[in-house]
């Protein structure tokens, strides 16, 4: 039990006229220079609360949280690894945190050096040639990547209108293609989850701009035909974009550039241990080959003698996708994380994330069969066994049952190509003991569910809010309290 459900009021409902916290002796007054016509006529409707009430309100809410700092969080394809506090300490250093974004290059040498070195390390890690650190997150990186492709083909005088995406892709891939005005061409996966190369070859040609491919794919399976895939796409004159969301499975072991891709994105909040949404702004990157480098957003950082300077490229650049150098505070965290690992240890991230996913898969195979009979990479896709399905128990029930047992639910119903998918990504940061406890909880969900299906259908019962009617909520959303 996380917290008693005795207090579900909003702060505004707890408000009482005149209640307030301690005031400074000389309270700041509203600035007199705000023109009269712009001043509000009535006071804003804000809660009036004593400081203690506010403290208890937010402390209580924070205790209701499921987060990676409080619970194992095996959300597949999200890489919910622990965010080391060392990263935070680095980003909080006055020289980084206090730097004004408009500071002249001469006054920002430390930050520019960091961005330059981070760029060099990441291009090396990816086996590619050039990088932009401007994008604000993964999907924004995809958008930037397709802008590069568009500029690349325009520069060559070619008009290509189609983006090819496998049906196992992250939803952001077709969404990005659509937002950019491309037509999405969907390719069915083979039963083993891999891209069907014969099918791909039928769908690529002079209209194809880019193949967007997630490696390893969303079933946690390595695209073992990647070299043949890249060759075929290149023969059609098109580009290969690797969705790097699953880089945790490859980092330090495989340089994606060696596989033949033209560009890829990085999610710093996944592979490089910076916080996910809510923990701060995001950051992403596009890493690419030489032929795409002239089109990268500006500025980038270059070294002239012993000085670091902003490089504004030339007219071929697509321009800016984010102010200044992007969310540099997040980049400092990613840099700290990289410095904390030797090259060998970066490879250990991939090795341990793969071992952990396969350990879970092996522990659960009797109760939750794996979609694929192969070893998986950093995540495994399971389904409820026949004994559960026969009793009307679904993946949703397993997810809710896990919450009662103190675990955040895995990703469910994704990838779409797997019926009743349960997608588990333990990451390298979890211990064997935690994985054993999780497997025991999954077993308990299975055993108690089969014995008493209704009890599992009622889960969760230990939270302030019980099983919600998701259908009703989606069909008739009530967006006001």
């Amino acid at each position, binding site marked *: 039990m996380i917290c008693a459900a005795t207090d579900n009021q909003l702060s505004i409902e707890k408000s009482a006229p005149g209640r307030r916290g301690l005031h400074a002796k000389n309270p700041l007054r509203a600035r007199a220079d705000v023109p009269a016509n712009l001043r509000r006529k009535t006071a804003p409707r804000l809660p009036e609360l004593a400081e203690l009430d506010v403290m208890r309100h937010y402390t209580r809410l924070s205790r209701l949280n499921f987060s990676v700092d409080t619970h194992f969080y095996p959300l597949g394809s999200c890489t919910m690894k622990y965010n080391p506090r060392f990263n935070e300490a680095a980003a909080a250093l006055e020289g980084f945190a206090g730097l004004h974004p408009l500071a002249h290059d001469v006054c920002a040498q430390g930050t520019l050096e960091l961005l330059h070195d981070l760029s060099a390390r990441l291009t090396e890690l990816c086996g590619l040639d050039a990088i932009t650190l401007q994008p604000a997150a993964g999907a924004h990186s995809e958008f930037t990547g397709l802008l590069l492709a568009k500029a690349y083909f325009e520069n060559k005088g070619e008009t290509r209108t189609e983006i090819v995406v496998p049906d196992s892709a992250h939803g952001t891939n077709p969404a990005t293609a659509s937002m950019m005005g491309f037509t999405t061409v969907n390719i069915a996966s083979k*039963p083993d989850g891999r891209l069907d190369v014969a099918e791909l070859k039928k769908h690529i040609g002079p209209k194809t701009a880019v193949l967007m491919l997630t490696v390893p794919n969303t079933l946690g399976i390595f695209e073992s035909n990647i070299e043949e895939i890249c060759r075929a796409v290149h023969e059609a004159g098109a580009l290969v974009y690797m969705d790097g969301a699953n880089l945790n499975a490859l980092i330090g072991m495989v340089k994606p550039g060696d596989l033949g891709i033209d560009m890829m994105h990085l999610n710093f909040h996944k592979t490089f241990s910076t916080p996910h949404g809510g923990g701060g702004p995001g950051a992403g990157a596009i890493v690419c080959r030489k032929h795409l480098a002239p089109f990268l957003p500006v500025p980038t950082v270059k070294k002239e003698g012993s000085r670091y300077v902003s490089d504004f490229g030339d007219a071929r650049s697509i321009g800016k996708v984010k102010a200044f150098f992007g969310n540099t505070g997040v980049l400092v965290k990613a840099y700290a994380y990289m410095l904390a690992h030797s090259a060998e240890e970066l490879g250990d991230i991939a090795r341990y994330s793969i071992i952990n996913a396969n350990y879970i898969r092996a522990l659960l195979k009797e109760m939750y069969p794996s979609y694929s009979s192969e070893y998986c990479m950093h995540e495994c896709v399971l389904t409820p066994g026949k004994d559960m399905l026969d009793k009307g128990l679904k993946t949703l029930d397993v997810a809710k049952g896990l919450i009662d047992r103190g675990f955040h639910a895995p990703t469910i119903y994704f990838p779409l190509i797997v019926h009743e998918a349960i997608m588990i990504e333990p990451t390298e940061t979890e211990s064997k003991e935690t994985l054993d406890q999780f497997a025991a909880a999954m077993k308990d969900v299975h055993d108690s569910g089969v014995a008493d299906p209704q009890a599992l259908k009622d889960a969760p019962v230990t939270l302030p809010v019980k099983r919600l009617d998701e*259908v009703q909520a*989606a*069909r008739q959303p009530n967006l006001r309290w």
Partner: protein
Amino acid sequence: MSKPEELKYTKTHEYVHPGAEAVVGISDHAQHEMGDVVFVELPKVGQKLEKEKPCAVVESVKSAFDIYSPVSGEVTAVNAAVTGEPALLNQSPLENGWLFKIKPSNPAEADGLMDWNAYQEFVKQAAH
């Protein structure tokens, strides 16, 4: 009311009731797999559709799904009732939950689709 045997099916689980004004919807199997439908976006009357190109969206509690037109042609009517009451797709996919009507530009296209027996076999195969 359409009987499942009178319809033709696509690999992406749309059905079409062939005719001068063909009726398009999603199969009973598809609605079952999607789960509770919560939102439907339909094409516009007069819109020209191409076979196998996305033309509508059905969103369930699990995910959003593109609907691909089983045949090429011009949309002659849409079922406004399903946008107000998406549950019709679950309750009555072949009757009250139809999506749109289309005047096929090439009626022979429907001949290439699966009949009821072939579709049932296809669904069985897909489930391995």
